[in-house]
C-alpha cells in the first residue's frame, strides 16, 4: 500500500495544477500579509481563502483526478491488491499532496508572519478541511459513474457546505427565533466542517467578542481544551465517516 501511495504522490506532486495551486496560495498569503497593516488582519483575510478556495480546489481536483485515473484504477484492481488498499492509497496520495501544497502555500507564510495560536489553529483547520474535501470528492466520484455528473455532484457538495447549509441555518434561525437556539447552533456547526473550522478560528481571534451570547455558548463549549479536542475529533470523524462510506461503495463498485 505504501508503494502505491508513493507513486500516486509523486505523480500528483508533478501535476501542473498542483504546482500552480501551491504558487497561487503562496502568492495570495504573502501579498495578504504584506498588504494588511497587521498580521492578525492578514490572518482574517486568509481565513476566507482557507474556508472557500481550499475546499473548492481540493474537491474539484480530487474528483477529476479519480475520474482521469479510472483506467489505471481498473488495471490496479485487476492486480493482486485489496481494493481497500488501493482506495486508501489513492486517498492518502491525494490528501497528502494537497496537504503538502497547503503547508507550503499557506502554512509557511502563516508561520513566518503570524505564528500565534490563531495561526496554528488556522493551519490545523486548513489541513483538516483539505483532507475532508478529498474524502468528499472521492465519495462523489465513487457514486457517480459519469465524470460530468461526478464533478457536478462534488461542486454541489462544496456549494452545500460553504453556502447552502448556512442559508438553511439562517432560515431555521428566523423560523424559530423565539426559541433559544444556542445549543442547536452548536450541534449544527458540527454538521458542517467549514462552519466548525470557521468558528474554531474565530474563537481564537479577538473578534469572538462580537459574537455575543451565542459566541459565549460556543466559547464555553469549544473554547476549552476539551472542546478543542472534541472539535478536532468531530472533524476527524468527518474524514473517517466520509472516507469509510466511499470505501464501502468502492469495494462493491463495478468498474
Amino acid at each position, binding site marked *: 500500500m505504501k*508503494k502505491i501511495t508513493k*507513486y500516486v504522490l509523486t*505523480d500528483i506532486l508533478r*501535476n501542473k495544477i498542483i504546482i500552480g495551486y501551491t504558487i497561487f496560495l503562496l502568492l495570495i498569503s504573502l501579498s495578504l500579509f504584506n498588504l494588511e497593516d497587521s498580521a492578525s488582519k492578514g490572518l482574517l483575510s486568509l481565513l476566507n481563502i482557507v474556508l472557500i478556495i481550499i475546499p473548492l480546489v481540493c474537491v474539484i481536483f480530487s474528483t477529476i483526478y479519480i475520474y482521469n485515473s479510472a*483506467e489505471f484504477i481498473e*488495471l490496479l484492481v*485487476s*492486480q493482486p*491488491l485489496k481494493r481497500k488498499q488501493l482506495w486508501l492509497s489513492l486517498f492518502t496520495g491525494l490528501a497528502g499532496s494537497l496537504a503538502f501544497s497547503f503547508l507550503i502555500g499557506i502554512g509557511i507564510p502563516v508561520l513566518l508572519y503570524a505564528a500565534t495560536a490563531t495561526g496554528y489553529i488556522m493551519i490545523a483547520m486548513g489541513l483538516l478541511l483539505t483532507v475532508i474535501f478529498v474524502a468528499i470528492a472521492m465519495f462523489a466520484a465513487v457514486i457517480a459513474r459519469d465524470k460530468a455528473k461526478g464533478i457536478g455532484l462534488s461542486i454541489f457538495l462544496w456549494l452545500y457546505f460553504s453556502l447552502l447549509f448556512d442559508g438553511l441555518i439562517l432560515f431555521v434561525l428566523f423560523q424559530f427565533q423565539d426559541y433559544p437556539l444556542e445549543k442547536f447552533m452548536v450541534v449544527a456547526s458540527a454538521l458542517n466542517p467549514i462552519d466548525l473550522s470557521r468558528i474554531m478560528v474565530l474563537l481564537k481571534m479577538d473578534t469572538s467578542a462580537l459574537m455575543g451570547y451565542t459566541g459565549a455558548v460556543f466559547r464555553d463549549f469549544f473554547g476549552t481544551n476539551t472542546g478543542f479536542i472534541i472539535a478536532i475529533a468531530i472533524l476527524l470523524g468527518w474524514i473517517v465517516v466520509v472516507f469509510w462510506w466511499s470505501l464501502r461503495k468502492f469495494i462493491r463498485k*463495478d468498474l
Partner: protein
Amino acid sequence: MIIASNVTKKFGKLAALNNVSATCNKGECIALIGPNGSGKTTFIKSILGMVVPDSGFITFNGRNIIHDWMYRRHIGYMPQIGRYPDNMTIGQVFSMMKDIRAHKTGKPVDESLIKAFGLDQLLQKRMRTLSGGTRQKVSASLAFLFNPDVLILDEPTAGLDPLSSEILKEKIKSEKDKGKLVLITSHILSELDELITHVIYMQDGNVQFHKKLSDLQKDTGEEKLARAIASVMSKK
C-alpha cells in the same frame, strides 16, 4: 482452471451477462467473440473481480474468487484502453507493478516483451507524452511481465502497428505452448486463426456456443475462423 457457473449481471435493465457458464482449462487459448455490447468485457471483468455478479459464481483453481483476492497474482491482464498517471514514467509504471507483484509470486520477471517492443529505450518517458500504441505496448508488457498462469487480453492488437502486433502474437503463442490459459477478445477475427484452440461466441449476454476451433471448423466446413463464424451466424 476457471469455472463460471450461471453468472448473471445486470446494469439497470440491461442484462450484460445472462446465466453464463463456461469452463476454461490450462493450455487452452480461447477467443471470446461477439458483437459490441454482447458482454465480453463484462465477462472478463467478472473473472478479474472488477465486476461483481448479481448471481452465480466464478471459481479459480477451485476457489470462489469473491472472498479471495490473491488469485489475481496468477493473472496477467491487458485492458482495452491503457491509461496511466500522466506524470509517471514508463520505468516507474514497471517498477510500481513489480513492487506490487514481484515478491508475491517469487517467479522471475519476464521482460522479453519490453525488449522486443523497444520500451527499454523509453523508460524515462512520461506517460502523458506517449501515443496510444505505445501505451498498448506498455499494457501488453505488463500483462506478460510476471509469467502469470492465465493471460486475459482485451483487444490486444487494437492500435498496434503490424510489426508489434506480430511480436505480440508470437509471444501469445509461445506462452500458450508453455501450457498457460489465454483468453482473448478481438474484433479482428482473421488474426486469431493461428492462435486459438477454443471459441466462445457471445450475444446479448448469452453464450451462444463454446467449442473447440477444430469442432467449429468441422461443423461449418470452413477453415477460416471469420468465415466459420459468419456461417454460424447465417444459420440462425
